[in-house]
């Protein structure tokens, strides 16, 4: 144990301080220390945001109906917020109600097997048992509403049409997937780094409940 401490000190020591200097400091900016060179982060995907890019390859989740995001969001260019409409009104983005699906799909593509399956559920008056893909621990408080506000609605550079880019910050290139897959680590480090870079609130109790 003693050794462990020492080793940890020795290895991370120098790097640790300056790395920390980069990622951990209160809202007020500090002049980047010499070490920050190799920690330079590329500017964000679009103006008004810096994003720590942390690729992560989530596993493919078995869903009752493997919903083709690529068709809807990708090919048909349907806005994310059209279906996930709760995201801008509530903390949780939620799954769109089945009625929304049926809104289109009692006319469109009714012959496809997936739509058939969906219709069955609808008739039975049940909702498909979706599985949660982007899941945060229960002691974490995250509100979609305010993040959208910050990055989309209050961001002069952005327009609602480009909402998918904002969603992509944390959800990855969903429009290229069928069933959604995790593409960001969504660890505390991920959150804090982004908060620090974009002057988000920086206080434990802000995100921990």
């Amino acid at each position: 144990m003693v050794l462990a401490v020492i080793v940890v000190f020795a290895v991370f020591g120098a790097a640790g301080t300056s790395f920390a200097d980069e990622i951990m400091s209160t809202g007020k900016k500090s002049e980047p220390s010499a070490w920050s060179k190799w920690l330079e982060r590329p500017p964000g995907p679009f103006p008004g945001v810096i994003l720590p890019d942390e690729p992560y390859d989530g596993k493919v989740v078995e869903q009752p109906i493997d919903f083709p995001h690529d068709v809807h969001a990708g090919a048909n260019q349907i806005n994310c917020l059209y279906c996930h409409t709760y995201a801008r009104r509530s903390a949780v983005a939620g799954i769109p109600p089945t009625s929304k699906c049926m809104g289109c799909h009692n006319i469109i593509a009714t012959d496809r097997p997936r739509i058939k399956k969906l219709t069955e559920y609808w008739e039975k008056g049940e909702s498909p048992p979706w599985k949660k893909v982007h899941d945060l621990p229960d002691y974490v408080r995250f509100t979609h509403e305010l993040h959208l506000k910050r990055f989309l609605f209050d961001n002069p550079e952005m327009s609602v049409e480009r909402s998918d880019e904002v969603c992509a910050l944390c959800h990855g290139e969903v429009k290229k997937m069928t069933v959604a897959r995790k593409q960001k680590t969504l660890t505390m480090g991920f959150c804090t780094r982004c908060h620090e870079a974009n002057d988000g609130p920086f206080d434990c109790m802000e995100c921990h409940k």
Partner: protein
Amino acid sequence: MSLVRNFIENWSRYAKSIDEGGFHEYKHMWGMVVDLDKCTGCNACSVACYAENNIAVVGEDYFAHGQAMHWMRVERYWDEPDIGGKRITETQEHGASFIPMMCQQCNAAPCEPVCPVSAAYHTPDGLNGQVYNRCIGSRYCEVNCPYRMRYFNFYSYYETSWPSPLNMQLNPDITVRDKGVMEKCTFCIHRIKAAKDKANKENRKLADGDFQTACQQTCPTSAIVFGDLLDHDSEVHQLWHKYQTKLGTPRQEKENPELRGYRIYEHINTEPCVTYLERVREV
């Protein structure tokens, strides 16, 4: 030179905090006033707290072991014969005295510096934050709390305390604490956060009365007043002002020392953010 920077920054803030009470750069400073003359000791606040904060019901055996968890506990003391003469009578001549005790959210909290992992820390709103999932259960904070207002999960109460369907009542805004975690009154911080978000959404500042703590909301005699001490329009600030209770200074120079406002154990300089108004009794 991060060390120096940190030292200088912190020291200047600290030095300021001496004369400005340690909350000069806060956005809010949540405080409370409890009028002991109005408090009837009816326990409503305590039960409301249970309902709001997912507090576990431990049952008789554990209660007997002193492992109960009243974040908000109404304490009852029998009068000492200080008023109404010293003579010992066969029966009471006055009622009892009640006091609702919640975490005093000290401005110089003894619980914070001793937490080895900073699970207990001071939020920029002047609260004593308790990050449940950071807590490792060393229990030093409770050992060092003069008010004994922190409670420890000695067991895992989830199954025993909320047998289905009782668990459907659990408040989603608050974690259900598992064994080995210290917990305490948070001034209903989830309500604060919800109100903040709402204000933020409407691009306005948080106003007094945007939200209430559970105990304040239910108190049948409105003995509990809660609000932002820095907001000069807030009722709580005006009360503090009226009773000349000052935060961030060890001694209270009141022009009129007879005023009712006082804080518990002021002399150990924990600077609690809860002001109690003395109980009044006819003699």
